[in-house]
């Protein structure tokens, strides 16, 4: 599809707050982007969009559990549209609170298509019990998904996190084995010198099992991640400028890969 015909949609509800930044970077890459409140989205046709983003924030105050209330709202208001969207292989990205929503709604990890409203994993309170805002180091675990087209497996990325509930856990060991086997673990926390984080703070900032920072569905067209790539898009956003200020940060490749995928789609 020609990029000028394509469109992304960033959804929001009360308490969402990273929508504008995501629009900023997508449009920087030439992808026209609408930010829609759920109250507006239910009146629109999701089929008009090629990419759907669930942004970060504190949807509905993160009451009950992070992402829980919004996920149930989607279930009651957008279930069908969303299932079709995913089924058609279009892109869905959940960042931070958006990741929590995708997990709560049961799309992630799941089999990827089922909007069941019954979660099979959870993003629990950070081990520190504190909100954590810091830059983390990540390792790319899969380069076969649309979001990572421009990345290589094993590549290290530096992207910031900002969350209080980011500890990804699953119901069982088996579920983890299954997830790994299906190549659904896509991002893991590592140390600054690229060694495994092994659950240790602060390299693994929240205590997530297997150092998981991001996962995808089986097909790879739905991805959720705790770090915020939109905050690591431009070089000037990086925490250390070193001797020379780079033009872009590591977050760019993720959005650019998605845009490239849409172009080919």
């Amino acid at each position: 599809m020609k990029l000028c015909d394509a469109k992304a949609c960033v959804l929001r509800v009360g308490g969402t707050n990273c929508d504008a930044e995501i629009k900023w970077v997508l449009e920087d890459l030439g992808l026209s982007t609408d930010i829609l409140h759920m109250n507006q989205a239910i009146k629109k046709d999701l089929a008009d969009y090629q990419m759907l983003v669930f942004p970060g924030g504190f949807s509905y105050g993160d009451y009950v559990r992070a992402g829980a209330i919004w996920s149930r709202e989607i279930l009651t208001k957008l279930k069908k549209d969303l299932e079709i969207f995913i089924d058609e292989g279009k892109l869905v990205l959940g960042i931070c609170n958006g990741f929590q929503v995708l997990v709560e709604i049961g799309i992630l990890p799941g089999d990827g298509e089922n909007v069941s409203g019954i979660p099979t994993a959870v993003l629990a309170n950070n081990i520190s019990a504190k909100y954590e805002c810091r830059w983390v180091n990540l390792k790319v675990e899969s380069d076969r998904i649309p979001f990572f087209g421009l990345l290589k497996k094993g590549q290290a990325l530096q992207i910031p996190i900002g969350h209080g509930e980011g500890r990804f856990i699953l119901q069982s060991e088996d579920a983890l084995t299954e997830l790994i086997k299906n190549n659904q673990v896509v991002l893991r926390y590592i140390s600054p010198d690229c060694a495994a984080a092994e659950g240790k703070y602060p390299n693994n900032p929240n205590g997530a099992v297997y150092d998981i920072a991001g996962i995808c569905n089986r097909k790879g067209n739905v991805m959720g991640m705790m770090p915020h790539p939109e905050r690591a898009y431009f070089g000037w956003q990086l925490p250390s400028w070193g001797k020379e200020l780079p033009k872009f940060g590591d977050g760019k490749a993720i959005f650019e890969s998605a845009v490239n995928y849409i172009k080919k789609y």
Partner: protein
Amino acid sequence: MIVKIEVKLKPGHFDPEGDVTAKSLRDLGFKVEEVKVSKVYTLNLLSGNAEEAVNQAKDMCKKLLANPTKDNFTVEVLGLEKADNKKS
């Protein structure tokens, strides 16, 4: 029917909030080993039948209030009175 739903972490799950609370309590000079934190939802269901109310409440837990990966829940019927009037 007033129903009280308690959502708590499954046994064996690490409870960071409880952990921090325990630490703070110890800072204040209390002798306490372990603290577990749970959430309680007290709600008024229109149903007049206790059994039905419990079933409804359980269904609420499955559909929203609890996440099966980490949470257990218990349901208790408090009766017909307003919960607020209960005192220790």
